[in-house]
């Protein structure tokens, strides 16, 4: 097998143009390798590309680990980071890997959807910035071309002060989300609701957002209506982790609870 150890993004994307497999934290790729689902024979190891670990204001480099985001990230993203895997996984796994793997259950993805983040990608021939909803196309399907590398995620400069992340799973540690959710609320009431694990891609509950954004001081009945709308907007499936019915219910309960935290 052939491995390359680029030190710069330019070297990394040049190696990718030959059809190599990018390797960052390995927490997704190695599971597939260990179970015999993949056997890459040409790997580009990205851990030594310092540029990818840069965190420049509102642009988080793809190589920034969950551990670092847990300590330094914006509130709801840091809360999400704290629920990613275990300490071992958070020391290795990166936000770029979460984005490129594009699991419906990716814990970091609802935050990116909630704040309308863009994904920065680069190839040997150029770079582009892709809005999150044009990047995530389906279950583990993205707009990323084979010769492109996710180099970072670009957040808006001004993030809502009130933001909260929550996750439902079968236990507190080391769990893949049954439902995960981010709610943000601006002082003028503008509310955003993004969810994971309830659709093929991270999604926004736009009708629910519109309804609750128009209410300056939501009453109990407004909150109940909000929860009902969120549950109606998601499109979950039944699988080995949960049923569609439970996910739908949990999505409404979780979104309402997180909105409550933003209103406090």
């Amino acid at each position, binding site marked *: *097998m*052939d491995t390359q150890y680029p030190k710069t993004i330019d070297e990394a994307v040049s190696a990718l143009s030959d059809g190599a497999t990018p390797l960052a934290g*390995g927490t997704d790729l190695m*599971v597939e390798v260990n179970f015999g689902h993949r056997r890459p024979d040409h790997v580009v190891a990205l851990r030594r590309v310092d540029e990818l670990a840069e965190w420049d204001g509102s642009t988080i480099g793809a190589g920034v680990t969950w551990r670092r985001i847990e300590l330094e990230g914006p509130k709801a993203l840091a809360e999400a980071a704290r629920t990613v*895997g*275990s300490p071992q996984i958070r*020391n*290795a796994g990166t936000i770029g890997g979460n984005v490129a793997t594009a699991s419906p259950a990716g814990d970091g993805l609802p935050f990116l959807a909630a704040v309308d983040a863009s994904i920065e990608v680069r190839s040997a021939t150029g770079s582009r910035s892709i809005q999150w909803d044009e990047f995530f196309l389906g279950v583990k399907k993205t707009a990323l071309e084979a010769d492109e590398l996710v180099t970072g995620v670009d957040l808006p400069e001004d993030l809502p002060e009130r933001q909260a992340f929550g996750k439902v799973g079968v236990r507190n540690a*080391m769990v893949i989300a049954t439902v995960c959710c981010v709610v943000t609320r601006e002082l003028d009431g503008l509310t955003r609701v993004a969810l994971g694990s309830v659709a093929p891609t991270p999604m926004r509950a736009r009708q629910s957002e519109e309804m609750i954004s128009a209410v300056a001081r939501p009453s109990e009945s407004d909150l109940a209506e909000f929860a009902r709308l969120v549950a109606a907007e998601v499109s979950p499936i039944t699988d080995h982790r949960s049923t569609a019915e439970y996910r739908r219910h949990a999505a409404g309960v979780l979104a309402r609870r997180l909105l409550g935290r933003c209103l406090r």
Partner: protein
Amino acid sequence: MIVSFIVNGEGVTARVTTPVSLLDVLRDQLELPGSKSACEQGECGSCSVLLDGALVCACLVMAVDAEGSTVRTVEGIASEGTLHPVQVAMHEAGAVQCGFCTPGIVVAAADLFDRDPTPTTDQIKEAVAGNICRCTGYGAIVRALESVAGERR
């Protein structure tokens, strides 16, 4: 290809022809079977090692990515015949039953105490959240680690 790195202070080389894990190389080529192989998906923590100072699951590190790195395994936690305080405390508290998870817990706990000599009980529990034990119910493990923190306060 040949991969060169440092394990427990000694330079080593391994011949790697497939994308095997660092765990496989440690156990099968380098005669370091302390790190256990169980879930192979980062769930159980029994293969916990320090890679360039960061606690990781060796099963999720591609061996070729250890090139030029420094690895510390459970075999490198005791120094020159003196057990690490975590090892002593786990022995004394009876925090070992079948022993399969013990190496991973020793490495994770040693990493915790390196970063914070006096963690709280919650911090201890969070530090070993990635290490699954199916025998002890964690009570004795947490008590052992609390005693290490207590001695240092």
